[in-house]
């Protein structure tokens, strides 16, 4: 397929002015945010302030993403994906590059956030993700390519946001784009029909990925057993075992069912905390100490720390739920 080396839009230098052929809006490139198979995303300055611009080569795939973003931006109340601003063409050196402009999400990658702030955030951010997925599903869409690369944590209070609607597919169709590790088809545990359970499987795999940053390959057979084994071997995942198991099996009809059960699990966090082996808790405290600079924290204070977490988590969850219901 098209050689990427010829694609000048993949390396636009800082300061370049991208001017739309049709709408005549102009944007000044600040930096490259990332690139993928279908295009390159830049942070740019405009009269709207900072925006993210995705510049592609193939106008069909850019248009396809624009179709989704436009519809998601029309959904009232919830923010599903980056807000869409406009779509245009950029003519440069005799070539025409389609691009679209969207909200810049100034966030931190999911796993780096969890690493920095503590593992207890995994469950909380998943609650948020499941709420958003529920809303997306009710609008008739399935996210499809759900993976940590497409999840950012933004602002305060920390809120999970998703990017890259390239895989977002209408309910009942075949998922447009996916990544093997998060795809139930790859694991032999289901079809690629876009339905809520497809995303819920991926959400479970995102959690598993949090415990196994290196990921792993599928076995020749019995992948369900294999995955359950991975869950059991991880102290982090063991706390979520009941919901992970059901999500992998495809037993949840919708996101709010899974969310409800995750919520109950998190409420019982005290028992989760006391079930934890001292070693894992200790190492958690250690890593906290490293981050927080040498405070005068007693070694033996880990029990208090765990209890404190439990409390904060409990109230934060209440706070979240207060917002939703």
């Amino acid at each position, binding site marked *: 397929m098209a050689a990427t080396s010829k694609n000048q839009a993949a390396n636009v230098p800082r300061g370049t002015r991208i001017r739309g052929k049709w709408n005549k809006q102009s944007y000044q490139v600040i930096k490259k945010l990332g690139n993928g198979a279908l295009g390159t995303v830049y942070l740019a300055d405009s009269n709207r302030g900072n925006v993210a611009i995705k510049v592609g080569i193939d106008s*069909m795939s850019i248009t396809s993403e624009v179709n989704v973003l436009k519809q998601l931006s029309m959904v009232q109340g919830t923010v599903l994906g980056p807000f869409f601003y406009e*779509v245009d063409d950029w003519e440069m050196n005799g070539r025409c590059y389609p691009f679209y402009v969207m909200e810049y999400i100034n966030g931190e990658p999911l796993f780096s956030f969890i690493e920095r702030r503590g593992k207890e955030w995994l469950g909380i951010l998943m609650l948020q993700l499941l709420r958003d997925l529920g809303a997306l599903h009710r609008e008739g869409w399935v996210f499809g390519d759900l993976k940590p690369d497409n999840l950012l944590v933004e602002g305060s209070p920390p809120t999970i946001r998703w990017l890259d609607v390239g895989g977002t597919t209408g309910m009942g169709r075949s998922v447009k784009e996916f990544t093997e590790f998060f795809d139930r088809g790859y694991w032999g545990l289901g*079809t690629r029909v876009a339905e809520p359970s497809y995303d819920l499987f991926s959400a479970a795999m995102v959690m598993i990925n949090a415990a196994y940053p290196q990921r792993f390959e599928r076995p020749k057979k019995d992948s369900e057993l294999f995955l359950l084994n991975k869950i059991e071997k991880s102290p982090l995942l063991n706390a979520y075992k009941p919901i992970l198991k059901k999500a992998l099996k495809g037993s949840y009809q919708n996101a709010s069912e899974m969310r409800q059960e995750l919520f109950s699990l998190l409420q019982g966090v005290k028992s989760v905390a006391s079930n934890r082996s001292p070693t894992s808790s200790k190492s958690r405290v250690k890593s906290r100490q490293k981050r927080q600079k040498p405070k005068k924290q007693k070694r033996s204070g880990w029990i208090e720390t765990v209890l404190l977490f439990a409390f904060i988590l409990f109230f934060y969850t209440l706070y979240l739920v207060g917002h939703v219901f």
Partner: protein
Amino acid sequence: MKKGTLRQILLITDGCSNQGEDPVAMAALAREHGMTVNVIGVLDENERTDSGLKEIENIALSGGGIHQLVYARQLSHTVQMVTRKAMTQTIQGFIHKELQSILGAEKEIEDLPPDKRGQVVEVVDELGETMDLEVLIMIDTSASMQHKLPTVEDALLDLSISLHSRIGQNEYALYAFPGKRKQVEQLMDWTPQMKDIHTIFPKLSSGGITPTGPALKEAIEAYQKKRSKRGLLEDGGYFEESGS
């Protein structure tokens, strides 16, 4: 627009042909028959061959399809992606023609204002999802491919998962070249379910010749046989129009 059937030939190979008709010519012939020829080149992990590359590219080019070089490890994801892209491309080509008849010659989708392109893409998406699809898979089983065959099998099962998740119907046929006695051998006749392929695969025997051209010729004949069996009208286009 009437729904129809998309016809693809998917060639999985790792190198140069060395026997029989020119595969590039056979690909061009297939295209005349309304099929598209897509080629996936399977490389070894530390292989840097440019020899087979040109042929792979040319077959796809004259067959109106797409080609992709890939390491065996990534084959699964690639096979379903190439098949999907090829479908989209074929449909786009067709819609492109329709567009030209509406907008006048020399009009490309890119000439439409971006806001209007959305509808075109929706139509392409809709057709890609709902049209029926026939895929004839042609596997190179020459000696150098032998150790890659288990991966090919995985990739085909993966392809069937993707295709069966579509709304449209699918049919597959599976051929290998060189065959045991003949240049080309049918492994599986047209069937809507690609299952039990692991029962066929271990039986493959690999030889030294690579008759890619004759394999493509056989693929064209297989399609024609299928058509006449069904007694459907031939239209020579990309779509077999069904209904009245």
